[in-house]
């Protein structure tokens, strides 16, 4: 028996987008990761309520879905800022000065990796190789790459994200 109250947590736009993914797949739980990413796209992160609603929609338990959600780097189970700043800490960027770049960004934002600025504007996360090693050191803000990034560019690049 479905409990519509739970499903109501999701917007029609979210449900429609999830159903499009379901249509490509042999069964509903297979769309778990797609559904989590879709809801996160609309809300910035996946709350317990969203998680329960997605689980209902896909016909699986919330515990199972949470074990999936927490496995993946790009699914956020905690709120994030308006912009997510991902700084590559893998080897090509490391060779090109990625650690000092990260230091510079930490100082500029006044937060540690994993934290969000008080005004809710930025969340800072280390991330693995972004596949743009010819532009190292590189960062990604939301869905935009920036690199090669000199430490002196940090303020301008981040400032563009209101």
């Amino acid at each position, binding site marked *: 028996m479905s409990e519509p109250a739970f499903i109501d947590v999701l917007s029609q736009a979210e449900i429609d987008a999830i159903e499009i993914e379901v249509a*490509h797949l042999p069964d509903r739980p297979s769309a778990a990761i797609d559904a989590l990413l879709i809801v996160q796209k609309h809300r910035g992160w996946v709350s317990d309520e969203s998680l329960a609603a997605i689980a209902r929609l896909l016909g699986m338990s919330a515990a199972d879905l949470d074990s999936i959600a927490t496995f993946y780097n*790009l699914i956020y189970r905690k709120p994030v800022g308006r912009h997510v700043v991902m700084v590559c800490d893998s080897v090509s960027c490391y060779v090109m000065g990625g650690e000092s770049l990260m230091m510079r960004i930490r100082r500029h934002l006044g937060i540690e990796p994993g934290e969000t600025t008080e005004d809710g504007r930025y969340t800072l996360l280390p991330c693995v*190789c972004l596949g743009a090693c*010819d532009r190292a050191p590189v960062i990604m803000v939301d869905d935009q790459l920036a690199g090669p990034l000199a430490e002196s560019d940090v303020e301008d690049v981040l400032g563009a994200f209101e």
Partner: protein
Amino acid sequence: MSERPLTERIDAAGGFVDGGRYEEMGGYVAARQAVTSMTPQEVCGLVKDANLRGRGGAGFPTGVKWGFVPDVPGRKYLVCNADEMEPGTFKDRYLMENDPHLLVEGMIIAAYAIGADRAYVFLRGEYHESYRALTAAIGEAHANGCLGESVFGTTYALELAVHRSGGRYICGEETALLNALEGKRAQPRTKPPFPPASGAWGRPTIVNNVETLCNVPAIIRRGAEWYQSLGLGEDSGTKIYGVSGRVKRPGLWELPMGTPIREIIEQHAGGMCDGYRLRGLLPGGASTDFLVEEHLDLAMEYGAIQAAGSRMGTGTMILMDDHVCPVDMARNLQHFFAQESCGFCTPCREGLPWVEQLLLDIEEGRGTAEDLELLDHNAAFIGAPGNTFCLHATGAIEPLMSALKYFREDFEAHIREHGCPYRSGPGSAAEADDGAN
């Protein structure tokens, strides 16, 4: 200028190749030819004769792999591995962003050859531009009758969709990838059964890398002999080689398979930046063994690199210059592998963080001679194939073992001098890190 079947359209278009441009430049001729006038066995045979080898890292012969798909009724899957999370690797992104139709066409031919009626691109989540390019190209291919209920007007039907990953390196391992595709945690599966027998949702499945599949259209159009003739040595075709690190022009170049390492670094990447000297390189991504100066004249092909104790891997090399501390670079690499372990088996889940900690201790001057022995022991134990459930841990140890071999003197100097000779006091990243914590 040698032939460049993978990137010639991108060069001619000066960047992104849209659907119209792709068709004009001979696009979908190969797929149409394969689907309308060849049997699946003929397509497999041609790819086998061409000696196309997988570009995802292992170099397995593609036509041979396709031949493992059993001739049984029912659903079969083709999955393109577009996870590309091997640090230092950026070639698949280039192909997908700039010439997405080439991948779509390669997938149509491959799917037809193995009898698949469903295909997926398993795309890493951070590749937003690739996602836009691929979904648009798939839409166009559908509209033009290259995909869907009746491919090129035949009875062959094929659906192609993109799955975006939630992001974990282990998703690139093909059986973990299949679990992720099924919406599960990306833990590797027991082999056998291998995916060609039982893969996605328990059905026969072929997983191939992006670059591998992009090679297929030209093989169909121009034949196995032509394809073989492109390679300089024993391997066929061209390869997208890449260089990152302190060179004048980091980048990617499609070159004949077997181009010497030195030519790639000096001619194409413009050589080292002024004031930097090359000390070592990881030839094919983070999970390959270091090579050093004496290896520079080797051909970048599977056999030659393997004979030198490394692997060609993804063919995108990462250079270590003389300003980089080998101990700290090894620590950076192990940090990645420890973090990305799926956690399923003990030597990998517990061993890699231990190795990372030992490296950090040595780097920061707390290391002892016993720590170095422990590092040797752990590396040998964790890296031995068969001690872990999948090749993640084996790959993790490759750069470490070789660093311990080629840069031994650096490890010993750290222990002797109780610190890192490369760090010149305050201002270095580690010092700053400590200060902030």
